């Protein structure tokens, strides 16, 4: 077992080294693919943390994507702050907003939570498209990001991608993670044993919001243009849901595999985005019907194979 674990560790290090050195040996196309993969991975990993581990099906992740992007725009354009600082502020504002809406939103359960979070994002969308300061529906052109090189954005994306996996990994191995798994297995029993359900779920919600805000800052370095209708659109969450379900909801590896498949399919059908969404939707439905644990969840169940185990051995 010890031997296997160290071999797995070397494998992970090798893959990470390969990705870090990618700009030196791969073509620009593949750098772009990995860049998009990392961003999608980071965002879907945060949705997975909510839906897969905390049982909170949120359809409002786009609220934090929009907030992160707009914060980057406002602080870097209007105040001339450094880009890295603006991205961090985006994370902080996302956490504060999540904290603010948590009081009403956590009174809602299950489906009510799903629609409640979605409605909050819709409210933001309308507010931002009627707000002169952020350029109404026209949005903002994030000019300062224009000066960054493609490789800088690649490394930023890779960093948030790896960070998101590590965040989920360490959460799951912490006291919070043990609490979450106890809640998932048996909510009432875990509460009688002293797990603070509200606190556990709230912490996850805040972490997910903050990370999503930061990732979105990096995302809009790449997109360079932010508009309320796309930034606060449900399309983001649609993508995260499909990625996570196909890859395997409630597994760390699921969003990794799912994001890779998503980006490949999306690039392959880049001229027909509606066809690729159609295919993804059909795959997602078949996965829920046939193998509800997704690709990685099914492999884990059948073969007991895990790259990153949340359990302490």
């Amino acid at each position, binding site marked *: 077992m010890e031997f296997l674990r160290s071999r797995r560790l070397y494998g992970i290090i090798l893959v990470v080294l390969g990705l870090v050195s990618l700009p030196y040996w791969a073509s620009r196309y593949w750098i772009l693919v990995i860049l998009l993969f990392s961003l999608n991975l980071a965002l879907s990993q945060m949705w997975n943390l909510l*839906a897969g581990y905390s*049982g909170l*099906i949120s*359809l409002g992740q786009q609220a934090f994507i929009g907030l992160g992007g707009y914060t980057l725009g406002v602080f870097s354009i209007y105040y001339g702050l450094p880009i890295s600082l603006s991205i961090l502020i985006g994370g902080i504002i996302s956490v504060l907003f999540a904290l603010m809406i948590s009081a*009403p939103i956590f*009174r*809602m359960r*299950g*489906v*009510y939570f*799903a*629609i*409640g979070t*979605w*409605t*909050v994002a*819709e*409210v933001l969308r*309308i*507010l931002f*498209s*009627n707000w002169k300061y952020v350029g109404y529906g026209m949005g903002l052109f994030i000019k300062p990001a224009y000066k960054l090189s493609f490789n800088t954005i690649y490394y930023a994306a890779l960093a948030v991608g790896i960070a998101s996996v590590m965040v989920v990994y360490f959460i799951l191995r912490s006291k919070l993670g043990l609490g979450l798994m106890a809640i998932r297995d048996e909510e009432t029993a875990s509460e009688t044993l002293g797990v603070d359900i509200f606190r556990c779920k709230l912490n996850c919600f805040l972490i997910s919001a903050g990370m999503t805000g930061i990732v979105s800052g990096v995302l809009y370095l790449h997109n360079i243009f932010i508009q309320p209708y796309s930034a606060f659109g*449900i399309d983001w969450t*649609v993508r995260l*849901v*499909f990625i996570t*379900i196909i890859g395997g909801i409630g597994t760390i590896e699921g969003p990794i595999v799912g994001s890779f498949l998503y980006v490949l399919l999306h690039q392959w059908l880049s001229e027909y985005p*509606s*066809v690729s*969404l*159609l295919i*993804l*939707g*059909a795959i*997602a*439905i078949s996965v*829920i*019907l046939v193998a*509800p644990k997704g690709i990685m969840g099914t492999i884990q169940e059948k073969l007991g194979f895990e790259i990153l185990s949340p359990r302490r051995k």
Partner: protein
Amino acid sequence: MLSILNELKVPITNGLLLGGLYGIIGIGMSMIFGIVRLVNLAHGDLIILASYLSLVAMTFFPVNPLFTLIVVIPVMCIIGFIIQYCLLNRILGKGMNPPLLIAFGLSIILQNLLLLIFTPDARTLLTSISVKTIPLGNFLNIPLVYLVDFIVALVSIALLSRFFNRTYMGKAIRAASDDEGAAQLMGINTKTIYAFAMALASGTAGIAGILVGMTFTFYPHTGPEYLIIAFGVVIIGGLGSLLGTFLGGLILGLAQLLGAHFLGPGFQLLSGYLILLIVLTFKPTGLFAKG
């Protein structure tokens, strides 16, 4: 006081009439939520699908869109039956989330299918009704299409209410919704009943789709907008009563148009959303829920 009332008579009348349309938009979702315990996230897209079906029917028979109800309702019923029988029934009893996500996937598939077939252009079901207004006394003009929406919605809901109280199928659906186990013991095949309920709900989506298409422009991606309206109606009205759903529609319609009146037209949707969030927070069972 009188001058305020005079100023508000337009948004109030239009809000109530629009509320009737919202009632028929929400009624199918309310039925499925109450009977199958499922939030059909594809409900808005079913409505828009019906708008497009009516559009297609009108290219074959150039008639008033209201007449296409004869074709659209049965087609929608069949589609609803298939969705429930072949997809959703297979996943019932495995928790709340899988059916929710299947409906979500279905919604995206429908949107993109419509986009592929009909292109992203704005469409509308053109009739002579759309532009006419009728004077009410000499101080108020009502858009005729809003009045037609309201009447069709009211008649449909009244017919549904009769169906649920008088027919065997209606009673069986209510029984399956009240207590699935007991209904099965009484010889009711609840899964088939669920499929019929979804067929019925999709039929109401068909009516809603034609009314929506006559009243507003629609695109392949407008479904989610009506989904949130439907959800708002269901939440405000509460589960379990058709009348409550109708009242929920009226409240939402009023809230939207009064919000637009006071804050500006950009905020029409916003005030509806805020009402929804407030009710969700303080009384998620709805204002008119039974029990």
